[in-house]
Each structure stands twice: as C-alpha cells, then as structure tokens.
C-alpha cells in the first residue's frame, strides 16, 4: 500500500548498520550538541543528532545519507529515549531520509509560487535527464523528490540539491546544473540568472547611488 512505511528490508539493514557508531570527529560534535541543552532535556538533541547521523551514513555510502532503523535506535539509546519517539521525529521531517538516496538529492519545489514561475519546466528537465520522482537513477547519482515550499519564493522556481539552493531556473539552466553535477563539476550556487541573491534582476531599482559607495540621501527628503 502506498502509505506503508518505506523501510528497507529489516534484516538486511540490521546486518549492515547494526554496529553503527559515531566517528571520532562526530562523537566530539555530539558532545557539543548535547551540552547545548540543560540537564534532563538531552532528548532535545534528537534532531541535530539525526541530521549528523544521516550525514555520517552519507559519508560512508558516498551519498546524501539516510537513517537506517538501527541508527535511529543507536540515537535513542544515547539519549535515553524510546525508539518510537525517535522514529516519530524521523518520519515527521522530510529532511530525514527513510530510504537510501543518491549522491545528489534533487529536491524540486512544486508549491504554488514555483509552479507559477515554471517548476513544471524544471521537472521536465529532470525527467529528460532520466530522473524519476521518488527514485534514484541507476547510476546512483540523483534522487528526485518533489517537496513543498523551501522558502525561496522570490527566486522561484528553485531546487535544493544537497545543502545548496539553485534558483531562478529554466529548463535550460536546470539541465545545465544537472549536467555539471553529473560530470563531477560544481555549478554556480544560487540564482542562475544575472541577479544577486533575491535582489532585483538587472541591478538595483532603488537606492541606486548606494551601489558605488555610501550616499547621503538626507537632502532628497526635503
């Protein structure tokens, strides 16, 4: 059924991840994270720890990482938290992957502003490169996910690939981004058009003098 939890085969996962433990570097990080919360409230650290674990799993598998059940249980044990509570958190947030993903996790925003500004073209570009929603490409490079608003509506349409946003996309620029990634390169992060972050396209429309240097506008008020 469609709503069944997408948990990969349990025995296999346990065999692979049953002896998960923090790397020395991450163990240090974990101490810092847990120390942020007052004594007795260590369970609050569950979200950063899950994220850290997902990244460690990613580093070990050369992907963006996911959260195998034994890893969640490892965190539950560490925080003295019932496994069910950890599992609830991991299933609630879309940032936690419950199944393996590829090296690049392409999260295309399909919410209204992006859709109006052409997210369909972005999906078309993905489809053209062989990406299928909710699946990983056979070469293990890309996993495509449609997500809800990622909060960059001013630069719609946008995608989040791994930890970076790629914005103001068109069919061509999205194809270019995917091509660069597939070739092992690093595409330009942020807007794919002539625009700084979410500033107006083609340069400032107000406070133009401020571009060059500090300008005293006080005379203009009178």
């Amino acid at each position, binding site marked *: 059924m469609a709503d069944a*939890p997408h948990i990969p085969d349990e025995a296999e996962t346990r065999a692979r991840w049953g002896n998960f433990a923090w790397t020395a570097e991450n163990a240090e990080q974990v101490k810092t994270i847990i120390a942020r919360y007052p004594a007795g409230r260590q369970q609050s650290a569950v979200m950063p720890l899950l994220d850290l674990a997902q990244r460690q799993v990613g580093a070990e598998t050369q992907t963006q990482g996911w959260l195998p059940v034994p890893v969640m249980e490892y965190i539950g044990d560490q925080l003295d938290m019932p496994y069910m*509570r950890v599992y609830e958190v991991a299933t609630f947030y879309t940032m936690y992957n419950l199944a393996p993903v590829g090296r690049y996790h392409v999260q295309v925003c399909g919410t209204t502003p992006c859709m109006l500004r052409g997210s369909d073209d972005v999906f078309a570009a993905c489809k053209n490169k062989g990406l299928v929603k909710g699946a990983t490409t056979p070469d293990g490079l890309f996993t495509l996910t449609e997500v809800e608003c990622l909060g960059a509506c001013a630069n719609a349409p946008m995608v989040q690939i791994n930890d970076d946003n790629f914005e103001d996309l068109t069919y061509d620029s999205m194809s270019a981004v995917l091509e660069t990634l597939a070739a092992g390169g690093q595409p330009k992060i942020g807007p794919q058009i002539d625009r700084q972050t979410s500033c107006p396209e083609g340069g400032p429309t107000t406070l133009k003098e401020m571009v060059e240097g500090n300008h005293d506008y006080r005379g203009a008020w009178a």
Partner: protein
Amino acid sequence: MPKVKVDGVELDVPAGATVLQACELAGKEIPRFCYHERLSIAGNCRMCLVEVKPGPPKPQASCALPAAEGQEIRTDSEMVKKAREGVMEFLLINHPLDCPICDQGGECDLQDQSVAYGRGASRYDENKRAVTEKNMGPIVKTVMTRCIQCTRCVRFAEEVAGVPEIGAIYRGENMQITTYLEHAAKSELSGNVVDLCPVGALTAKPYAFEARPWELKKTHAIDVMDAVGTNIRLDSRGRQVLRAVPRINDDVNEEWASDKTRHNVDGLVRKRLDKPYVRRDGKLVPATWAEAFAAIAAVQHSGSVAAIAGDLLDCETMFAGKALVERLGGTMLEGRQTGLAYDVSSLSSVVFNTPLADLETADVILLVGTNLRWEAPLVNTRLRKAIKKGAKVFGIGPEFDLTYKVEWLGNDAALLGKLPAAVVEAFGKAARPAMIVGGGVLAKDGAHGDTLTLVETLGLVKEGWNGYNVLHFAAARMGGLMLGYATAGGIKAVAAVKPKLLFALGADEVDYAAFTESFKVYVGHHGDKGAHAADVILPGASYAEKAGTYVNLEGRVQRGEKAVFAPGDAREDWSILRALSEVMGATLAFDSFEQLRAEMVKAVPALGVEGLADYGWSIPSLSTGATGELASPIKDFYLTNAICRASPTMQQCSAELVHGVEFAEAAE
C-alpha cells in the same frame, strides 16, 4: 478557587481546573475525543471548543485552557454550535462510513457526538484517505482508516502502561498511529486502548464481529484472574459471556483491566466440565449426579476429610466446603495450593495494608521478590503514578522490566537482614514508605519474618499509614485465609496425614502426586490438572456463572453477580456441596444462596460488609535469617489458571508475547 460564569451561572472551581472541568462542574456536557481524565492533555481534536471571555474573539479548546478568575464561559452560543459542527465535519471528512460493519457501532463516541453536535450532512465530495491496518499484537485489532488521531492510545501506552511503543508517524494527512515497526505492543494492559479509542480504529481482536452492544446483557462482576479484584462488567448473550470490560472503581482498578481479565472469557466455553465423571477401572467415565454422589458417599473416611480451595473461588463456595468438611468430622483446610506455608496467625501480616489508591502517594518503595507487572499489573500502574510524583524504588530479587526505574540491590534474601545504608537512609527520610512483598518471599523460609523485622527498621508503620504490603495473586486467597483455609505446615501437612477423602474445590495447581491414597473429589469448572487427577468430578460454575463474595489483596470485600448459567449439567458449587451433604448424611444448614451467605456472615462478620476489612495490626514473631535467591512464582502471565489455559486468546498471547513465537498475518 477561581470564580467563573458558565452559561450565566456563577460557580467556584478548584484551582488548577480547566475550563472543560469547570463546565462539567456546572453540569454542561462538553463533547471531546482526545481529552481523557486519566491521561495528559493533548488538545488536538478541537471538539471541546467553547466561547470564553475575556480572550480572543474565537472559540477556544476548553480542555487545554485553565479556568481563571472572572471568566465568562458560554457553551450554548451560536459560535460554539457552529464551531462544533465545523470540527465534526472536518473529523468526518476522512472517516469511513462503515458503521454497519464496525465493532464500535452502538458504543462509538464519534457516532454519538455526530448525532448530538454534527450538522447532519457532509459537503465533502473528494476522495477519502485510506490507511493500512497495523499489527498491534494479539489483543488489538486495527482499522486505521477510522482513526481520528486523538492520540489517546499513544498517551496511554506511554503514561499508564509505561510501554512507549505506540506513536504517530508521518505528519499532516499522512499521519498514522502505529506501534514501533509494527511489532506487537508488549504490554499486559494493551486491551485498554480499545476502550480508550473513541472510534472503531482500535477494537478487540478476539471479540471482532461477535456482538452488538445493545444485544448484550450486562452483569457487574469481580475479576478472579489476579488478587486485585478488578471490578468488571460481563457482557453476555444467551449462555455465553462474550467480553469482560472494566467498571470504574477508583479504589481498586480505576478504569483499567489487564488483558488477562478482559480476554480470558473465551476460555469459559472451552474445556468445560459439563457432566459428572466417576473413575472406573482407572478411567474417568461420564456418570449421573446420583452415581457420582453415591461413589463419594461410599468412601469410608471416618472423619479423615480435607478440602483444598483453588485460586478462583468465591467465599461462599469456600464456606460451604468448609462447612461440609467440618460436618464430616474433618479439620484440614488449605488454599495455598503450591505449598506455601507462611504464618497466618495475624492476617494483617499477610495482607496489602496500604489501600491501593494511597499507594500512589508513597515516596520510597522497596519491592521484595516480586514481578509486579505480572503478579498484579494494576498495582504496577499505581506504582508508576507514585514514581511520576517522585517516589524512589528499590528492589530485591530477580530483575524484571517493571516499566520504570528500579534500583536493584541484588537477588539475595540475605539482603533483607543487611540493607545498604543508602536504602535505610532513604526510608528514614520518607514520610510514606512502602514495602511490597511478593510471592517469592512467602515461598522462602524465614524471608517473611525478615520483611516483618524491617517494618520496625524502616519505619513502615506511621500514624494513618501502614506501608507493609504482602502481594497475593490468587483471587481466593484473602477470602480463604479469613475463612480458615490455612493449615499449619501448608499443603505438605495436609498430604502427610493422608486424608481418606479430599475435596479439591477448583484446585488446579496442587501436586496431586502427594495425595495418591486419598479419594479425590474435584468440584470445579475446567478439565484441567485437578480434574485429571480426580476420582470423581462434580461440574461446578466459574466466576461468571455464580454470584459470590471476593476479598482482594488489600482485604476489600466485594460482591459479584451471576452473568450466565453454567453449561450442561454443571451447577453452582454451593448447591453441589449442599446436595452432596444430604447424600452423605451430613446435611448442611442452608437451602438457598441467601441462607448460605447469611451463615457465612454469621461465621465471619467481616465478609458481610463490602469495603476494606479491618485486620488490626500485629506482627507475629517468625523465624528470620533467610538466604539465597528469590524467584517470582509466575512463569507465564497469560497462563496462570485453568480458565486462561483453556482460552485460545491467552494461549496466543503467551506464545507471541512471552515466548516470542511469530504468527504469520492472515493474507487479506
């Protein structure tokens, strides 16, 4: 004491009360799904919306809003009516219209409240969502599409049962209630989520499609599966009890019941003794009552008569048995079937002295040789409440997962004589210290005396407080002790005198190998160990088929009613004994149940008063100095007596939850 106005009526409410409670005090009914008196407040169903001034000009969830001085609450305004209709319409958006095939039908909060507060029709014509069924073990059947996500079951599992294995995964429209990775919920209280569920999402698996609530006869009874004396209601149709559900009694079981209490009832129609049997040439053959009586009357006993009472008996049966034995010239009575021989010169030293409701207020607790979770699950929930209030628990004996943190001191009875200083110090500071002495202690020579010595050392008895508690787990035990079913030396002493005639009154845990020379008459209801060993079987009635008086572990006298008739030729135990006495020429002095009860009350006046019996308080001087390991006598929670051993549900629970057998889910 804030003063609030509910629908124009001014009233004082206790400090800390919520608006919902204030409305209830004013006699207003507030519809609710997620709110439950005995669980924490969630505030997520929004059904309890009311209008509150001062405050934002919108309806507010009354269950999560504290009542404050000067509030004006309206539960009858147009805004409230519209709000309730709106919430109800939303709740019904994804709720299937399958009431005709739903087991909750007829006792469903959602049905009732949609009739009372809904708008009568839906404007929703999109597709409804569907959710797959979840596996929650052998007791709970799930139909998750019906779930309205009130999260009562999640809160119950975490707060009351102490088994945080149920949770809500995913979010928004995809939210689903499930157990961790869909493993069976490993709790002996899981059946309670069925009662808590306001819709038909969680229903009882063994009771699935059995009956509709309106066709059931409801009888108030007392449970006999453990010594807590859970107040239950037996729902029967015709001659069969279909289910047992708890009644509310805050002094005993609150509103919970263990899975064994709820689901042993399918054992009441299996492996029953429905006609008398007589052993001829080594084989038990069916007989008539007259033949069976004649066989017993033919025994040359010359006064060498004994009776052993089983664990499930009511006081009336035991009294009738005692009367018969005494009329025949015998004296030997015993109820402690497994061979325990503790001293009973002072009943106060073998009873649970702290009333169960007061146990919640204990601040330091010592558990000695007990697996509370299996010996008395509902005492364990009381203890969990005490711990939530900050009580500290120490334990001596084998370590068990009791669902809370216990500081285990080790498994050695010698520890009773030399408690660590930290424990003594903790008890020294305690205002309401308690000790719970389990069956493992009573089985050990000297250990009972050791625990009684600790009463003084640990200061368990204070003004208005007695913290010395012996935990029994046989429903008949305290009643039996009050009626004198205890022989010095225990069952060994009874076996030693080799009684010519032995009445086994539902006694199934006895080692009958010790009674090979006795003529054994088994009066009971199930073809279990006792019947196998008997020379004559007289088919009796189970707890559901006779009225009776029961005394629970704290000495609380309670009465149960008769729900159905015993099957076949089986009769109520007292009438069997009465009829037999006539054949044996020792006619008992009662002709009806009322007369029997009157006789019994005359003999033991305390049994005539419902409520806690007063045993006084005195400590007998007993031998001390026990050493060695303690063991809990219960090996399998689900199979402790003849009724559960006959119940397929209990057998499955035992296999799945105790022995870890995995059952393949039926393909649907």
